[in-house]
């Protein structure tokens, strides 16, 4: 059996029945608070402290060499619960030596910010660390259209993040090391 604790209540004493003691203590409780420092964050001037790994606006990032990291595998598009992401894959044209093994990049990459719920699943599933939820938390607009962010805007918002893995470079290196690989 569960260990229980019965909520007891005492009947009101006579003085409490006159309302006065509790009115006084209520007044006292509020009065004390009048002299405490306000807890308000004066927002537009004072910015809130956003913790690390905050799930803000999803953005596309470039690697330190300025390459778009997204390879349009469309995993994020698939996992996105509100289906806010839309990607048009396209083949990479030309022989870019630094992009070995990368066959695709997004021709268009739109995120409908009014659909987006900032759940972070896209970032979680991305195998290229190309999509990141930044600490921007406030987006608003006058029309729906302006709230659909295209690839350029997303890249601009995202900027460059330090790449810890250098996946492509490693792969390229591995390929150079052994021709059998692949």
């Amino acid at each position, binding site marked *: 059996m569960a260990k229980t604790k019965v909520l007891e209540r005492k009947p009101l004493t006579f003085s409490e029945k006159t309302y006065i003691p509790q009115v006084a203590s209520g*007044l006292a409780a*509020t009065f004390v608070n*009048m002299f405490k420092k*306000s*807890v308000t964050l*004066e927002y537009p001037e004072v910015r809130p402290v956003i913790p690390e790994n905050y799930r803000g606006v999803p953005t596309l990032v470039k690697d330190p060499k300025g390459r778009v990291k997204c390879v349009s595998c469309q995993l994020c598009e698939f996992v996105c619960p509100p289906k806010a992401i839309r990607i048009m894959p396209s083949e990479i044209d030309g022989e870019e030596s630094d992009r070995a093994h990368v066959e695709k990049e997004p021709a268009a990459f739109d995120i409908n910010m009014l659909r987006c719920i900032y759940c972070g699943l896209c970032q979680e599933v991305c195998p290229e660390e190309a999509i990141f939820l930044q600490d921007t938390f406030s987006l608003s607009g006058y029309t729906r259209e302006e709230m659909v962010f295209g690839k350029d805007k997303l890249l601009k918002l995202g900027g460059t993040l330090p790449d810890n893995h250098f996946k492509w470079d490693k792969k390229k290196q591995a390929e150079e090391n052994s021709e059998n690989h692949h």
Partner: protein
Amino acid sequence: MSFLDYLIPVFYALAMVGVFMTLCAYSVLAERKVCSLIQRRVGPNRAKIPIVGHIPIIGKILTRLGLFHPAADGLKFLFKEEITPQHVRIGYYYLAPLIALAPALTTMVVLPFGRYIDVSGMVQPIALANIDVGILFILAVSSLGVYGIVLAGWASNSKYPFLGAIRSTAQMISYELAMGLSILPVFLWAASPGSDYGLSLFGVVQSQQGLWLIIWQPISALIFLIAIFAETNRLPFDMAESETDLVGGFHTEYGAFKFGLFFVAEYAHIIMGSALFVLLFLGGWHFLPGVADPWPDGLIGILCSISWFMLKIFFMIFFFIWMRWSMPRFRYDQVMHLGWKILLPLAVANFVFYIFLIAFIDNLNY
């Protein structure tokens, strides 16, 4: 000359209405500011008038204090669409806010704001009309205010306002009794047999030179205070409005300027109530209990007495606000219970007690 005789009181009255309305607007601001203080917030502080607001330091302080917000709020009502719902009874619908506001402004006529010493050395009140039956006038007129609320509720032809109106009617009627009875001992005390003062408010104030009546008649003061809270529909007695169950109570169907009038009327009643309480129990413009008035003669003395009186009113307004943000709300039938079964007998008992006491004291003196 005679023309001027007419003009001065008119000018005086207009000035008072102006001051009074501004006071109402700023007590709304005070409400918002005190509430934010209590809740550890900042309160309105963003409205900035172009020129005044940009004066280096003063402008900033004024803005931070939110002094321009009441202006915006008040004027906004003017530029808002006057919606008239189709189902209302139009004549009464428009009449109601006026009726709600008018009594509060009218009672102001007999309020003494301070005192001056006239040429013959007599102390005279500063009031538009110093009538002998001031308190009767106030009781009579201010109870008309309830008609505004009733009319509003009825004319809206909608259920929430209707319920709100019914509640506030019953509540006001019940508390008026206790209120009337509670101040009888005050006048018994203030108007000694054969005095000229009668029911004049000025007389009550003058009688408190030595001792404030709140000390001498605490029960009366308490009953009167509670009754004022009820009469002004303030929390914990805001049955008429009770925002969480009746949405807006009697003024649910009112928007724009008409609502603005109700809004002002509520605060006008508070100011009136505060003024009355100060006059009756807190010694009016008298300095402190047991201390002779330190006001100098002449104009400065007049101003001092007025300011001191206003200061007390401000404190009372603050108290009203402070109560509102500290208390939960009564239930309607409990309000009735409190009014009829507790306050009324208590007021009667209190009255009887003071009758004997005062008779006893009077006998001692003779």
